[in-house]
């Protein structure tokens, strides 16, 4: 039997290959993207993955929607930073750098236990609201208690002025990256194994049916509490790693935006799958850092992507792939592979058209001189003339139209035809 998730179901594909492919990818990627910025981005992806996995312990596994998970990430980071600074001040003597994240994890656990003790009594909206309030409270206090939080300027540390267990020089971004990978792997394994324990099972049980869980002897509050505390611990670990890669921590790491991003990434990836949050977190990290260089509209794209996922693919991107894979394996693609590809293509064309429309709008409404020519998909166009608008809208309408009103009914007809044929 496979994972114990809601929709994950039993699938060997999703069970084993990630454990081989992802570490391999983690080792190969820095060879390809070998600039400092590229390596830092990869490190951030690693951290985001731990954070998202920890978040999914709440949302996916226990059904707890939190709007304040960054509190534990951020507080873990702050405590780790203080320890790093102590090590710095002691002239580089004390706790080895490799273990600084453990400090963050301990801090996350500590605050998770404290805040968790009163926030997990109820799930659902009450829990969501409490986490929202707590997140705002902690974020506001980060600007008030500047002794601990360093005000809005934050705190700085120096990872090089700290001893290393293995004599590694962490001046190099690449070495730091491998440290992140190591911790990410450890965290992922632990979080994965946690799902297999009685606690992990009962977390799912409590998510699906807290009442029933009570009648098999479990206190849902305690199940949620332990899950919450452990999730906070892993969030703190991610925070501790962030301190090492960026050597800075400030109020944004406990802020609502951080909480929002982890929710976004986890959900986009797919909360029902173990690798869902990983995929989502990595994607969001890359998009967030690079999309903004290319388009002003990146927040809008983010919002639209998120809404589309919520509306049309509640199991996330991994869910889409997995469903299609299962259909394919079950032979559901037979005789209609072409139609599926056609729908995909039409959809992509539609998206392309929609992007053109959005880019045109941004140019038209936002730039000082809308009539200035600008480059759109390789063409230089003038946004004050009708032509580019007509073409863009046309592409979008044709694309989505073909997908929804031509491809979709055709697929439905084909499928029903095959199943009838099968019966006959």
């Amino acid at each position, binding site marked *: 039997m496979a994972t114990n998730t809601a929709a994950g179901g039993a699938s060997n594909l999703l069970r084993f290959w990630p454990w081989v492919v992802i570490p391999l990818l983690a080792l190969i990627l820095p060879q390809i993207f070998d600039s400092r910025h590229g390596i830092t981005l990869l490190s951030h992806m690693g951290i985001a993955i731990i954070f998202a996995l920890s978040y999914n312990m709440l949302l996916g596994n226990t059904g707890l929607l939190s709007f304040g998970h960054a509190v534990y990430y951020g507080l873990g980071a702050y405590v780790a930073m203080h320890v790093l600074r102590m090590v710095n001040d002691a002239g580089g003597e004390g706790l080895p750098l490799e273990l600084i994240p453990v400090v963050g994890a301990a801090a996350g656990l500590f605050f998770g236990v404290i805040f968790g003790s009163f926030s997990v009594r*109820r799930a659902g909206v009450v829990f969501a609201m409490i986490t*929202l309030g707590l997140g705002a409270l902690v974020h506001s206090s980060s600007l008030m208690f500047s002794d601990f939080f360093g005000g809005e300027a934050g705190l700085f540390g120096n990872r090089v002025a700290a001893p290393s267990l293995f004599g590694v020089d962490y001046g190099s971004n690449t070495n730091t990256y491998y440290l992140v990978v190591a911790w990410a792997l450890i965290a992922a394994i632990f979080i994965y194994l946690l799902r297999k324990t009685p606690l992990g099972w009962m977390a799912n049980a409590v998510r699906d049916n807290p009442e029933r869980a009570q009648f098999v002897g479990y206190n849902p509050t305690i199940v949620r509490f332990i899950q919450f505390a452990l999730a906070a611990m892993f969030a703190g670990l991610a925070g501790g790693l962030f301190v090492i890669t960026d050597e800075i921590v400030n109020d944004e790491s406990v802020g609502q935006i951080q909480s929002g991003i982890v929710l976004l990434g986890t959900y986009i990836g797919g909360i029902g799958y173990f690798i869902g949050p990983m995929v989502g977190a990595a994607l969001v990290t890359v998009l967030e850092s690079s999309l903004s260089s290319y388009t002003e509209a990146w927040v809008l794209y983010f*919002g639209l992507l*998120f*809404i589309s996922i*919520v509306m049309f693919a509640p199991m996330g991107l991994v869910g889409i792939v997995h469903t299609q894979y299962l259909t394919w394996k079950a032979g559901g693609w037979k005789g209609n592979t072409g139609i599926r590809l056609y729908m995909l293509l039409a959809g992509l064309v539609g998206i392309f058209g929609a992007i053109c429309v959005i880019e045109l709008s941004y140019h038209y409404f936002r730039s000082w001189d809308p009539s200035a020519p600008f480059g759109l998909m390789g063409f230089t166009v003038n946004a004050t003339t009708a032509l580019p608008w007509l073409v863009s809208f046309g592409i979008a309408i044709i694309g989505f139209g073909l997908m929804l009103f031509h491809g979709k009914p055709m697929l439905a007809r084909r499928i029903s035809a095959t199943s009838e044929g099968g019966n006959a």
Partner: protein
Amino acid sequence: MFETIAYSILNGVLYGTLLFMMSSGLTLIFGMMGVLNFAHASFYMLGAYFAYTLGLATGFWVALFLAPILVGAAGALVERYGLRRVHQYGHVPELLFTFGLAYVIEELVALFWGTVPVPYKAPASLDFTAFSLMGLDYSMFKVFILLVAIVMFVGLWLLLKKTRAGLVIQGALSRPDMVGALGHNVPMVFTFVFAFGCALAGLGGVVGGIQFVTDPGMAFMMGPIVFVVVVLGGLGSVPGALVASLIIGILQTFFLSINFSLAGAIGSLGIEDSGFFGVLWHMETTRIAAVLPYLLLVLTLIFRPRGLFGKREA
């Protein structure tokens, strides 16, 4: 001291009534559909922007009526083509949908109207000093806001208590599972309530946009506070929303208006202004005022999750 109290109550009631305009719609929607609409404050923002743009063409008074209707229509579209689809997946996706929607609306507003505040001003007919109280002027527009809020509360009350539609909604507020049994078209009722709630928020925006600032950040600024009002008042309770709005409005204004800290009142007792308790000891009420709503939110949810007037827990 008397001055302070008078100012606080006056300003607090004004702020409270604006909060009520937004929260009444939110609490109706939640009570009926179980959806905590994260994008509610976005509809408040849309109200302000619609009224601003319409006002340029038609003048303020027409916009005052048209803008909420437009916002309500936008709400109906969102419910019909967005929420209804997500509804089948459960409450968490619904919440997430509105969460994402809030971002999209903010971006679209910034796209069409820009990131800078728009010059949305009170109409000349209301832009004069109504009265002066102890050296401070109060503009007619502030009085007007109070009037709008009172009319709205009375109208809402009449609607809920005296009309058939109101009775259906009321029934649904206390027993959501019973609506279906009433034989009414439940999805229609949902769409109507959602649109109506959004229109109320839009009305709040029409006047709030003038009183405060009309910029794309106004939704995210107000959003959390509206939640606090709704939770404190009791989810689904309209009178609760009114009382909670006034409490929060007055309390927050009062905290801002007085100059108080434990250290100032009792003496510093040799406690330095550093360290966790030191900072708390020296913390002035003005600085606490900003986090006060969140504090109330968390405390309410811990100790009385049903709020002041709520009949059932969230």
